[in-house]
């Protein structure tokens, strides 16, 4: 599994170094790759051990279930973001799409579960498609296009909800509500859906042709085009996927809250990007893995949980810690991962 990623992620450099100067640099390369891949997991385990030793309430069923549920929605968004970032792009519109998806789902739930699920997927997928078209076909910078989409989607949300003054409710007894509130074997349905999506995402990114194209585009776009990879189509697909995932996460969240809350999702794009980066995916593209993003999300949520448990600390500290943590991870990644690229 691990070798698959490494090979796909940085084929040329690794092979070149290993063949050129055997021993030292190759081992350093492997070590830094290892640190990149499992650094987040080790940190997560450490954080959980420290937290469970410090707070009796941390390792209780209720707390863990709450953490899993609140991680689920962010995790789905981060999954789409992983694909985008591996192609070397970025999607800043996911927070707005998450909120828009929730509102549309809540509005659509009065017409049945199918509408409640399909409407947000269609609208958010369409916005993602437009992002992808503008980025891939017109060559516009991803961050500015998705920044505009973030604003536009927020505008649509306000237009749908009478300028944010209406909150659509979901019928508590409907099947749609059980998608958010129900549980299976003691674990919430959103968690199951998230796990399923991650397994699927990991298989697609690692094992499918599309996944290989995603790595190729992120590694070197020109080389990918010369190899015959459909660069534009791959890019369009990842932004559409990101939109779909954000819409789905919003819909599930609406089912969980049994209402379409309009003020959700601001800053979520930052959380998702942080999670993906903390999970070891390189922002320069071409290297990354889905499981890391899940670990990143869990790590962020554990930090949040610990700060909430220390009652005296303001919740604003969470932002300071997350920001500082993101900076540390990025610095470490830059030093570990592409010291050679900077020279």
């Amino acid at each position, binding site marked *: 599994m691990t070798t698959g990623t490494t090979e796909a992620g940085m084929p040329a450099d690794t092979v070149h170094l290993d063949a050129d100067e055997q021993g030292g640099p190759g081992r350093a390369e492997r070590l830094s790759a290892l640190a990149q891949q499992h650094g987040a997991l080790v940190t997560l385990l450490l954080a959980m051990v420290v937290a469970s030793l410090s707070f009796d309430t941390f390792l209780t069923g209720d707390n863990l279930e709450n953490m899993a549920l609140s991680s689920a929605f962010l995790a789905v968004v981060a999954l789409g973001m992983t694909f985008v970032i591996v192609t070397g792009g970025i999607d800043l519109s996911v927070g707005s799409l998450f909120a828009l998806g929730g509102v549309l789902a809540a509005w659509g739930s009065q017409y049945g579960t199918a509408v409640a699920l399909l409407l947000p997927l269609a609208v958010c997928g369409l916005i993602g498609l437009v992002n992808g078209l503008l980025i891939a076909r017109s060559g516009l910078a991803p961050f500015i296009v998705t920044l505009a989409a973030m604003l536009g989607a927020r505008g649509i949300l306000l237009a749908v909800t009478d300028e944010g003054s209406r909150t659509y409710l979901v019928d508590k007894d409907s099947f749609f509500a059980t998608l958010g509130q129900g549980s299976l074997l003691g674990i919430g349905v959103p968690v199951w859906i998230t796990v399923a999506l991650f397994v699927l995402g990991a298989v697609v990114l690692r094992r499918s042709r599309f996944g290989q194209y995603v790595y190729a585009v992120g590694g070197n776009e020109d080389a990918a085009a010369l190899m015959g990879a459909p660069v534009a189509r791959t890019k369009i697909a990842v932004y559409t996927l990101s939109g779909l995932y954000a819409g789905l996460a919003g819909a599930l969240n609406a089912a969980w809250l049994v209402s379409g809350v309009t003020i959700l999702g601001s*800053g979520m794009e930052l959380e998702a990007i942080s999670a993906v980066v903390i999970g070891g995916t390189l922002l320069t593209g071409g290297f990354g893995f889905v499981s890391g993003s899940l670990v990143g999300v869990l790590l962020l949520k554990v930090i949040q949980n610990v700060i909430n448990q220390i009652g005296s600390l303001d919740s604003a500290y969470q932002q300071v810690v997350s920001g500082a943590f993101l*900076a540390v991870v990025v610095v470490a990644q830059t030093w570990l991962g592409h010291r050679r690229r900077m020279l």
Partner: protein
Amino acid sequence: MTELAVARGALDRGRLLRLAQQYGVYAGVAALLLFNFAFTPHFASAENFRTQAVQVAPVLIVALGMALAIGTEGVDLSVGSVMALATSLLSLYLGYGPWVAALVAVVGGVLVGLANGALVAFVGVQPIVATLALMVAARGLALVLLPQLKDVRDPGMSALGSGDVLGVPYLVLIAAALALLVAFVVRRSTFGRQLLAIGDSRPAARLAGLPVRRVLIVVYVCSGALAAVAGVLATARLTASDPTSLGTLMELSAITAVVVGGTPLSGGRVRIGGTVAGAVLIQLLTTTLVKHDLPPSWTQMAQAVVIVAAVYAARERGKR
């Protein structure tokens, strides 16, 4: 003969496109002004122009710093959070007098800029990510320092926010002075030349022996300081410190102003006049929609369309 005609046609179209890219923003401002003179009641009054100018001043000041960052092929997403941090610091240190408080606020912005610059210049982190980290952290810090909205009751501050010279508000004067200063630095100073050279090609600038790291750090420090100044001025105008909402989406407005003004995101060129016009254009667009009773949702969607259109128009030049 036909070939010549075709070639000239293409040339004319190319020149037309270039003209549209360079002066489109001024034409847009003029069109919006004409539209409002014709169709908006009470638009052509000194009072209205004062209001518009005062509203645009903080955005403009932030956009100046953003233009510098974009000129080096970077971006500064932390500006909105720096404004929030500045307003928190301002109201914390107001006891020592407004000048000391404003100075502390600007120092806060300088420190954030220093962190951004160090991450970008020395560690080699992409500007988007480096400033993203600081954006999250600075907003958190602002909220830790000042958890909720607080009134700013200080005669000096309220004079700064609502006073004027010969009918021109202080805010507008300060913004205009800063715009002239930044335009002078970009066009006439060695630092400006170095900045543009780095934005054009960082490796070439390094090979030419330019102090790449120092220039990058100074650029992000300037951006942080300008954002902090904008935060102080916005606080003075609102006579309240609100670290939760002050400066949210400011990075977006500033980037829009810069991009609409014809500065390419690929660096190497900075157009300060265009940036000023871009900030005015966004303000006028918002005003037009608001005065014609269109809801805020329309404003946001219109702004999104304007951003994409501007970037789309600028893309040919950006590639060259």
